[in-house]
């Protein structure tokens, strides 16, 4: 494997089903040995993209390059990829050992070698002793481990995972998530993992790509996607952001002023080419918003808004205070930790405020 080549490259990849465009000219590059996550809403195209990389869909236009070779029209059995599916993909008429060794026996390896490798891989995924079981005798988590063993034993350098944890319940998902990360670090190959679950994505990923409406919206490490989203869509999908919009009223150097609900807000321009009069979006994470009682005088610092308190939602770790602005837009302030202070009565005038730099500007 040539270290100069990215493991996976997708160029201007489009996939159409009749008049429906599942993928619209996607460009993507994934490095060797990376744990890469395709995150996005259901029906957004992330699974289509994964399956096209795997060879289960033929591109309508564009190319797929794996390990520096063009493979766009090769069938799955001819590509250097292995795949783990969401559920029901184990062969029910074979034992666990038969399942794991299937790919090796297809490659016509000697039986002894197939046996050794299969057993070793089963041990690596923590299923030693389960060789003679049948798939219908295994739990959901165990079945996914067998799938992993079956895929990894093939010794290919790209593993595709199509929502592998979606069929598991919440606690099991969390445990297996971390195990997947450790497994990838141990084996060292490229993992491409599709999910719609943010927590899962951030636990495992080196880099995340947000795919929605058939397009690559944004990509980067988890921290960047969460804290410093570039696009409005990213801010709306990842984390719990408050989204506001308004028309730019002034641009001075690196500071942009956007009035919201009649109150001017200042935000860092981040080098974006905004002009006065343009409609822009603003986002601020709910955990960076503080709700304080209104004290009558309105400070014109561009870092707060006036509103009325609606309700609070207690979620154990966090408590969300919901505030309605004058035009009905809702702003949420999330507070971590215990507080015994009583909630205000609904309808109380309050202010929501944040520190400089917390508000982010997005162009349309």
């Amino acid at each position, binding site marked *: 494997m040539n270290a100069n080549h990215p493991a996976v490259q997708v160029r201007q990849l489009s996939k159409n089903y009749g008049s429906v465009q599942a993928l619209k000219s996607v460009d993507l590059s994934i490095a060797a040995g990376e744990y890469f996550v395709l995150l996005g809403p259901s029906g957004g195209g992330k699974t289509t993209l994964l399956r096209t990389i795997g060879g289960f869909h033929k591109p309508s236009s564009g190319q797929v390059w794996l390990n520096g070779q063009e493979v766009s029209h090769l069938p799955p059995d001819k590509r250097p990829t292995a*795949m783990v599916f969401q*559920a029901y993909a184990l062969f029910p008429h074979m034992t666990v050992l038969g399942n794991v060794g*299937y790919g090796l026996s297809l490659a016509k390896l000697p039986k002894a070698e197939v046996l050794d490798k299969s057993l070793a891989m089963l041990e690596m995924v*923590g299923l030693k002793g389960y060789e003679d079981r049948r798939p219908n005798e295994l739990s959901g988590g165990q079945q996914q481990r067998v799938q992993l063993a079956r895929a990894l034993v093939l010794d290919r350098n790209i593993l595709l995972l199509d929502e592998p944890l979606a069929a598991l319940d919440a606690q099991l998902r969390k445990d297996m998530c971390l195990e997947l990360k450790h497994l990838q670090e141990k084996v060292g190959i490229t993992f491409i993992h599709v999910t719609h679950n943010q927590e899962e994505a951030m636990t495992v990923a080196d880099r995340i790509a947000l795919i929605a409406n058939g397009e690559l919206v944004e990509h980067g490490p988890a921290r960047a996607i969460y804290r410093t989203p570039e696009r409005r869509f990213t801010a709306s999908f990842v984390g719990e952001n408050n989204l506001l919009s308004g028309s730019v009223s002034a641009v001075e150097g690196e500071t942009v002023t956007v009035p919201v609900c009649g109150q001017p807000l200042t935000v860092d321009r981040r080098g974006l080419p905004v002009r006065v009069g343009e409609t822009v979006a603003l986002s601020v994470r709910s955990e960076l918003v503080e709700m304080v009682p209104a004290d009558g005088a309105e400070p014109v610092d561009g870092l707060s808004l006036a509103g009325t308190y609606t309700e609070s939602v207690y979620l154990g770790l966090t408590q969300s205070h919901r505030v309605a602005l004058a035009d009905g837009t809702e702003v949420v302030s999330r507070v971590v930790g215990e507080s015994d202070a009583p909630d205000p009565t609904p309808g109380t005038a309050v202010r929501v405020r944040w520190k400089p730099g917390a508000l982010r500007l997005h162009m349309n």
Partner: protein
Amino acid sequence: MNDYANIWLHRAKWAYLLLVVTTLMSPVFYVMYISFNENGFGAAQYVFTTRWYGLIFSDAQLMNALRWTLWLAAVTAIFTIPMALLAAKFYKATRAKVPVVFLLLAPLFVAPDILSAALLVFFKNLNFTFRWLGDQVGVAFMDGWGQLGFTTAVIGLIIYTMPYAFVVILITMGRYNKEQTEAARACGATGWRAFWDIEFPQIRAGVFSACAFTVILCFNEYTRTSLLKGGFDTFTTVLVSQMLNEGMSEQSYAMSSFVSFVAIALIGGIIIFTLLRSEAAARRAQPVAEPGTRSTAAV
């Protein structure tokens, strides 16, 4: 069935169902009953005998016809089943589902006599065309093409049985999970290997049912075979021509019963076999470990 339902009404409905099945089968059972009677139909005394069956097996013409029938059924099945498999896969993959299913199921809706008449004329005209072509070009090898005989009978039977095989196989495939084929391909199997190693073992039961179905249908078929077979006799055509010409002789009763026995045995066998198999599978599947509980082995 909920707890408030009237148990007697339920039993009455079951009784009606079984009554209908019995009524439908009763003429056949009655014929079987007669076939064992020494004195034939309508006789005052009933004497049990298997004499009439013996007569069947000693009749050379009949045995020959039986051989032809088995041969016809086997060859038809050999062609129909793979074609039905291909058609089922084609149907699942294509977006033009309606024309495909219409074409494959249409023979069900065309009465056998009409279908055979159309095929008969088609083949004869085809034969004439080939002969004419042969005369024009000066070759003789085409003279036999389209002539009524074994091949034309087989073609007619394939058209007849294809819808049934198609539906049975399609329904069986419906229970198969496509992701397993994809997983097999991801492991390195070609499309054919994925089918043979993974899909076929799971749809095997349905395919064999379709096979048995096809064989029985061919065995019992009369109209299309008689019109399309040309010179040779099949078991059913001999039976029917006897019945039409001489009325039902004792031997006819025995022959009818023989055919019925075979069919019932086959289908009854399939029902019982699938019943036993599903019960065995239910017994073998152990309960899955509760999520969240930790055993000494990994979850």
